[in-house]
């Protein structure tokens, strides 16, 4: 047996013709946040569903806490918590009733379910709203409540499927800090996200998934190195472009990349000094750019550099068969 809390070995899952997972392997140790990064339709949700025992792999094997998800799903279920992409809470129950119900279904005694419910409601800061029916909650509150429900059974591993998609920035920060607290308390978390900054902020390790395959893995820094880190980006008027290209070449010692339709030019930036150097040269040449700035690499850059196609291009995102899953 391994000391890996999640161990996925060459998992394939097909839906008819679609290979939602096409030989995915990944494993990591307990006590960390593992971020699964990829665009819509990459296979993130399918992998979570396999690990949460909702879906059997077509081939390959997967285990959680050393337990095989196919041969002993019931034992896996006592160790995990799942918060899916949609807050699966009941609008016509109160927040407290929702969490307590899930606690009971985790096979906690009535008293224990009540005690744990108070604990998690406090932790997610919903005590004041706990006796209101969920239909009065905001989207962010529902998300937090859903997270609370997934925590009530004290899972060793928590699966969070796009925990911050579609909620406001303030709630997003709340959920981030909640996730961080959970890991400090010893829970292992596997989360999926479409946002590089989210994975960067939270995850100790990141797996990049595309079209059902893991295309890169490592820490946030390792991934960014792969992409080449930050860039200085600027746009100038058409007549100045040739001059500015020369100027950029002198700063970076390499050919600047030029985005064709917009004429936006960029060079790698090791630090803010690169930006200052470019600014000084522009001033000397008396050229005022329309726009200039440093930009950190995005998911798109990661994809572009690893796969050669953008994350959100049409062909990269075959419509996920998810909702009609069988």
């Amino acid at each position, binding site marked *: 047996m391994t000391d890996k809390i999640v161990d996925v070995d060459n998992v394939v899952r097909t839906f008819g013709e679609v290979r939602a997972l096409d030989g995915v392997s990944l494993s990591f140790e307990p006590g960390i946040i593992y971020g699964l990064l990829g665009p819509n339709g990459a296979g993130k949700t399918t992998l979570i*569903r396999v690990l949460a025992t*909702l879906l059997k792999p077509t081939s390959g094997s997967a285990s959680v806490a050393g337990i095989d998800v196919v041969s002993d799903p019931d034992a896996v279920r006592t160790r995990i918590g799942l918060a899916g992409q*949609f807050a699966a809470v009941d609008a*016509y129950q109160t927040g407290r009733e929702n969490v307590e119900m899930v606690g009971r*279904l*985790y*096979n*906690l*005694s009535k008293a224990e379910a009540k005690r744990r419910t108070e604990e998690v409601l406090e932790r997610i800061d919903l005590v004041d709203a706990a006796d209101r029916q969920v239909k009065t909650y905001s989207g962010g509150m529902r998300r937090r409540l859903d997270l609370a429900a997934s925590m009530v059974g004290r899972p060793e591993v928590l699966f969070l499927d796009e925990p911050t998609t579609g909620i406001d920035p303030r709630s997003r920060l709340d959920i981030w800090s909640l996730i961080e607290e959970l890991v400090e308390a010893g829970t292992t978390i596997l989360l999926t996200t479409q946002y590089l900054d989210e994975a960067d902020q939270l995850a100790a390790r990141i797996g990049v998934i595309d079209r059902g395959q893991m295309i890169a893995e490592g820490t946030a820094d390792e991934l960014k190195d792969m992409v080449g880190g930050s860039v200085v980006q600027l746009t100038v008027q058409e007549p100045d472009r040739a001059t500015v290209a020369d100027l950029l070449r002198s700063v970076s010692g390499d050919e600047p990349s030029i985005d064709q339709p917009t004429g936006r030019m960029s060079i790698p930036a090791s630090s803010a000094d690169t930006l200052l150097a470019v600014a000084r040269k522009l001033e000397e040449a008396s050229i005022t750019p329309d726009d200039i700035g440093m930009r950190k690499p995005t998911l798109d850059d990661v994809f572009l550099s690893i796969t050669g196609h953008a994350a959100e291009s049409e062909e990269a995102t075959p419509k996920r068969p998810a909702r009609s899953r069988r």
Partner: protein
Amino acid sequence: MTATAETHTMRSPLVRTLRDIGVITKRNVLRNVRLPQLLLFATIQPVMFLLLFNYVFGGSIGQSPQLAQFGGYINWLIPGIIMQSAVFGSSQTAIGLTEDLQAGVIDRFRSLPMARSAVLAGRTISDLLRNAFVSGLMLTVGALIGFRYQTSFAQLVLGFLLAMGFGFSFSWVMASVGLAVKDTETAQVAGFIPLFPLVFASSVFVSVESLPSWLRVFADHQPITVLANAIRGLFLGEAALPAGTTVSGTVLAALGWTLGILLVFFPLSVRLYRRAAG
């Protein structure tokens, strides 16, 4: 981290299953009670049917000597209408399940260490409870506008239970439909449309003798007629049944249909549930 052993209670699987069914049933009942329009529409429609059939059609169909002999059309109508509301009510099972599927609630349940049968059983039982409430209301409204049973109170209760039992059994048909189609709009149509010929081409509202002979063959042998007849026999006595049939024989046939449907659709819907998202 591993307080699991102490905090999770040790119970036999049967006790756990019953407890899980109880938890899910309570959840669904709360929804019925707290979403007023749900109960309102669930009761208005059958009461409307009852009043319309009694006062609009009762005047003409109810005048036939065959139906009038039991003390007015209302006495003929009530056993049928209770059957109709039990069957229509069971189509809610399909709708409720598809709503849970689409909201991701079923995913949550399936990821929990709970009894696999609890989600379906909790759903069908809460629908049974709602059915019993609605049908009880129909009996009350019926009594207010003139319904009087012609047999004993025990037979009235038995007839009522027979209707509820069939409604419960039919809920499993609807559970299978819901799990097969998976989306609420489709479930609404797929669950409801087949009910109309079953309910109307039966002895629910009229005597099947008035039907054209080709339709009568169907009407005579389909379960809704058998059930409506059985309930009618229990409420009104043997005279209300087609010639050559007895109350006990019809009740047995009704029980046979109820059990038969359950035996086919209970395992089928459990299988569909396992597959629903898998």
